[in-house]
């Protein structure tokens, strides 16, 4: 355990430092190139640059390469390749508007390195009841998991700071769970995701100086999914991600098809005169987590973001309880 301490500390410092240092020059470059979009939740005409994905992926690659130098594990390579592929897919979507099916299909392809490198265990572990062996089904699970986690984080990236802040809470919860189930090496491999998210949150929090874009959100989500698979903590990871899962579930159950947000006609949320957020009564608009939070009355963008963070902390606690329950069998 002690010999894992040095790589853990070095990789976490590098993960945080790379994103923290690289994001301000990235913001300047994006401003020069005029890669900016309107922040629709601000009263003034505020333009925010995007995507922050390049800084995020740089932090992840640097820190995971350091860990690979120490451990030479196929699991690290699988996480790196899948996450980098997800970044590339997101970057294409940032630059060019793609159809609703592009990201799920491309992310399914991005999951293949996990299978090719054999960086998984086909036993699916459940709390209280033990494990179930599903060798063939597990391959399908891998192919589905990366698009689901990638798009789930992407779909929650709707307010300033939410995607990165949510990722900080979910990924640190997942790391704690990996320590609880005594999967120490993957726990250390997972830590850079939390530190990268934390460093990016500094610039993404309200008022945002940069948005992660699809490249950033898909990088976050896909790395989270890859860690869940190689760490054998798929169920725990799903629990920690529940608020974002609820958002996707509500969206899909109301829209009843896979569709890009920009293709939706109805508006789920509108602004009051003092520019607070308010749920609409539009029956054509999708039901989302933000709309449900606002159903009780108008709130500021910051209040909604903190409501989502509270739900993420609650899910993180449930995930940690689930991790403890893995050691108990009935």
């Amino acid at each position, binding site marked *: 355990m002690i010999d894992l301490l040095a790589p853990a500390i070095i990789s976490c410092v590098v993960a945080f430092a790379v994103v923290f240092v690289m994001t301000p020059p990235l913001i300047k470059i994006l401003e020069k190139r005029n890669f900016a979009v309107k922040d629709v939740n601000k009263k003034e005409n505020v333009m925010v640059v995007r995507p922050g994905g390049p800084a995020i992926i740089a932090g992840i690659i640097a820190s995971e390469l350091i860990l690979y130098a120490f451990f030479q594990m196929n699991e690290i390579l699988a996480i790196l390749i899948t996450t980098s592929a997800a970044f590339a897919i997101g970057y294409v979507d940032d630059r060019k508007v793609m159809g609703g099916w592009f990201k799920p299909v491309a992310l399914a392809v991005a999951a293949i390195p996990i299978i090719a490198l054999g960086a998984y265990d086909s036993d699916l572990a459940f*709390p209280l009841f033990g494990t179930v062996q599903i060798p*063939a089904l597990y391959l399908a699970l891998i192919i589905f998991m990366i698009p689901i986690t990638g798009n789930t984080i992407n779909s929650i990236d709707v307010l300033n700071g939410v995607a990165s802040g949510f990722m900080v809470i979910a990924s640190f919860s997942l790391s704690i769970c990996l320590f609880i189930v005594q999967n120490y090496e993957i726990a250390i491999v997972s830590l850079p995701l939390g530190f990268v998210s934390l460093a990016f949150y500094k610039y993404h929090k309200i008022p945002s100086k940069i948005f992660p874009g699809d490249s950033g959100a898909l990088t976050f989500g896909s790395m989270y999914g890859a860690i869940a698979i190689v760490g054998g903590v798929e169920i725990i990871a799903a*629990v920690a991600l529940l608020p974002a*899962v609820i958002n996707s579930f509500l969206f899909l159950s109301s829209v009843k098809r896979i569709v890009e947000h920009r293709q939706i006609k109805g508006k789920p949320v509108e602004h009051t005169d003092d520019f607070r957020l308010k749920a609409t009564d539009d*029956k054509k*608009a999708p039901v989302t*987590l933000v709309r*449900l939070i606002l159903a009780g009355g108008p709130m500021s963008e910051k209040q909604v973001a903190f*409501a989502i963070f509270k739900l993420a902390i609650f899910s993180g606690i449930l995930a940690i309880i689930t991790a403890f329950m893995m050691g108990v069998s009935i």
Partner: protein
Amino acid sequence: MKSGLFGFLFAMWVLIIVGGGIVVTILGPISIFGFGELDLFITSLIKAIVALVLVVIWILILLKIKNWIFKKELKF
């Protein structure tokens, strides 16, 4: 509304634990014999179909719970 969302999260968590129990105790031990080399394929196929049915049931239960928890607030 927020307390309703915490309740909905908790309900999802309980459903995951219960669903896991069903998968491990009922779905896991299923194995089909008598088809030679196709045994593993047929077993996996049946498990996949049962798993899909369970997912559909899980989603339907969640929809009911969502409507029950948020029935006062959901005007949309």
